[in-house]
């Protein structure tokens, strides 16, 4: 029990994080692509394609971060102070992104709010990448507490991860637009998706080369035998998925490019999990080191097993309710 309970929770938190990255990924992607819209009608269309969903999507961030408090309080208590500034910047960016949605319908000065929306989205994406990069590079811990400085996370690798996530979310946003809009926006999004796909691939390769070189533990995980025999399919499948994504975008398909992009993200996440498991706070604290008391994990688990499927159910319902292309003439509120 003491062994597998933290593992189950690691899987649940991981699922929450993946859900967040994909769902808010395309929301933030729309914000990242916002500056490329030509006029107010297009910007409106882009907003309307995500407006019913963004609030629920962002909730997965609370489940992922708050979930860390629930299941792994010692990891939460180390990671948050260690990545203090990127976390705060992310939160403030999300504040601006979130209110920009609602203020835009009321305001006369849409320009400022479009700037807030685009900047907030881009900065939130960048901060999340920096958080990821900072986490992968490892966090110094002494006596169970963070023992480093306020700017430890500020490295070239973290910047690389930040830029990668901007491109990645941009790709999610672009393929979402291909799926949910028509006309000029959809066509432009198709072109943007191609560019972003290539960019994401370059970044993925860069990160995949950098991490084993920079972190010997990751190199050992991937390249030692017999691990390598099991793990080499992962980059192969990723390459294949990327190729299929390209083909589907080019072939004018609406839905498959978005689904394939999700698959790319899942594969990227899988790679991260393979590199770092069981370390929740690399390089020193595992999921077992940082787990909450079993009584707490069990109490939360029982409720989660009941509630999470319900949550997924009504989230699915909402996406079904607002299925199809954004309709011309269907107004906000």
């Amino acid at each position: 029990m003491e062994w597998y309970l933290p593992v189950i929770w690691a899987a649940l938190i991981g699922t929450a994080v993946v859900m967040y990255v994909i769902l808010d990924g395309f929301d933030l992607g729309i914000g990242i692509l916002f500056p490329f819209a030509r006029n107010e009608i297009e910007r409106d269309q882009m907003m309307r394609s995500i407006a019913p969903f963004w609030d629920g999507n962002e909730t997965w961030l609370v489940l992922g971060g708050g979930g860390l408090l629930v299941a792994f309080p010692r990891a939460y208590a180390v990671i948050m102070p260690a990545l203090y500034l990127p976390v705060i910047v992310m939160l403030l960016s999300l504040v601006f992104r979130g209110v920009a949605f609602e203020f835009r319908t009321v305001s006369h000065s849409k320009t400022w709010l479009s700037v807030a929306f685009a900047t907030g989205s881009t900065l939130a994406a960048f901060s999340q990448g920096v958080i990821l990069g900072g986490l992968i590079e490892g966090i110094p811990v002494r006596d169970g507490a963070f023992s480093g400085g306020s700017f430890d996370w500020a490295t070239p690798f973290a910047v690389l991860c930040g830029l990668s996530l901007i491109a990645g979310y941009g790709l999610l946003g672009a393929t979402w637009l291909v799926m949910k809009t028509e006309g000029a926006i959809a066509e432009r999004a198709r072109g943007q998706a191609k560019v972003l796909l290539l960019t994401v691939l370059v970044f993925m390769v860069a990160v995949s080369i950098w991490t084993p070189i920079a972190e010997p533990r990751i190199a050992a995980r991937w390249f030692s035998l017999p691990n390598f025999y099991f793990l080499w399919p992962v980059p192969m499948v990723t390459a294949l998925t990327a190729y299929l994504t390209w083909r589907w975008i080019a072939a004018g398909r609406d839905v498959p490019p978005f689904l394939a992009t999700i698959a790319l993200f899942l594969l990227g996440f899988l790679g991260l999990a393979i590199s770092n498991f069981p370390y929740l706070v690399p390089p020193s604290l595992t999921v077992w080191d940082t787990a909450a008391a079993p009584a707490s994990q069990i109490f939360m688990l029982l409720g989660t097993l009941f509630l999470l499927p319900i949550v997924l159910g009504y989230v699915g319902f909402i996406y079904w309710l607002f299925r199809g292309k954004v309709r011309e003439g269907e107004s906000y509120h």
Partner: protein
Amino acid sequence: MDLDPVLLARLQFAFTIIFHIIFPSFTIGLSAYIATLGVVWLRSGNDRYQQLMRFWTKIFAVSFAMGVVSGIVLSYQFGTNWSRFSVMVGNVVGPLIGYEVLSAFFLEATFLGVLLFGFNRVPPWLYVLSAAIVAAGTATSAFWILSANSWMQTPTGHELHGGIAYPADWLAIIFNPSFPYRFAHMLNAAYLTTGFVVLAVGARYLVAGQHIEEGRTMLRMAIGLTAILAPLQLLLGDQHGLNTLQHQPIKVAAMEAHWDGSKPGDFHIFAWPDETAGVNRYALSIPHGSSLILTHHMNGLFPGLNSVPPSDRPPVKMVFFGFRIMIAIGFFMIAAALFGAFLWWRGTLFEARWYLRVMAHCWWIGFVAVIAGWIVTETGRQPWIVAGILRTADATSPVPAATIAGTLALFVIAYGVVFSFGIYYINRLIAQGPTGALAQETGQFSANPISAARDAGRAAVRRT
């Protein structure tokens, strides 16, 4: 300059949570009001209720967004600035917050999508049901958050090993001694706060001579609600106070600025507590008043601040004045609501211009009372972050003072800008009124929504 990281962390949390509480105080009540309007619409078939529902939903959206983004800040701040708190009591508090997210937050955030955008996609019964679900979600959020916060005030159901709290009895944890009182008091406060906003908006329209029918409807509904809830809040508050006396007597001592527990307590209408000397200056008091309220006896005794060393006392002035402000507003609410009910009974409510003028300017009173009350309960718990278990000064994160000062400045600037605009936009929505041209899109598919909205907006501005 030597900055105290603990003080900065407290200031940052206080700042962000005070901003946050404004929005749930409004959205809990407003979502219930919107659902009520929906039910009345379905049962009466009267389109005015549907218009009012759509009108308040727009305002709800703006407020809810600000509540969400400021709430996410708090859920991460437990880690960024209070990491030792997270380690010491995370086993207990964590799941309570976790249940809030899973059973409430997701619910409200998801079904809000239907409420804001789904009017043309779902049948009316599902639309109103979505409103009810959002209202239930907000109340459920309040349940879990108040449970977690109440455990910090009256911790039970746990065991301590090496200073770390482990859960022993979840029912005792969730339904800890102060929870029922604090939950009832806060939930009622939320409905009251919204009631006075709706009252103010209705009054404003009648004074301006615009949207008269809608204004009258809102006035009637709001006075009906507040006439019941305002006196109820006094009762709930009294019970809450007695419960606090039992479990957190020093907090009550600070609320009353009661220093010497060996004598009965006077009720100070005004006083200036001198915390160094341990006396109250310039006191305007009702003799034995506090003893009467707290013990129901003229000469009843209750613990004074002197019964504990200064290091175990909360900041007296903040708690004392916060309490006075809260109950002053509470009594004003009772008077205003009952007087409004009286005027309504006499049939002179809609012509009582001076009453309407005053109430139109009183939209903010609930918010001030809520903030004052939260300052009383949270500051009154100091120096403990979890009463008797963990001191605030021992609960912070290993983050340098300068870094916290930097982020505090960012929060003050960002929140100042964002929330100022939020209130400005809500005010503009109210000024446009329930029959603003934007409401005309019901069931219509206009060819060019942007220019239609622009023209409608211009027309609305010209009308107001």
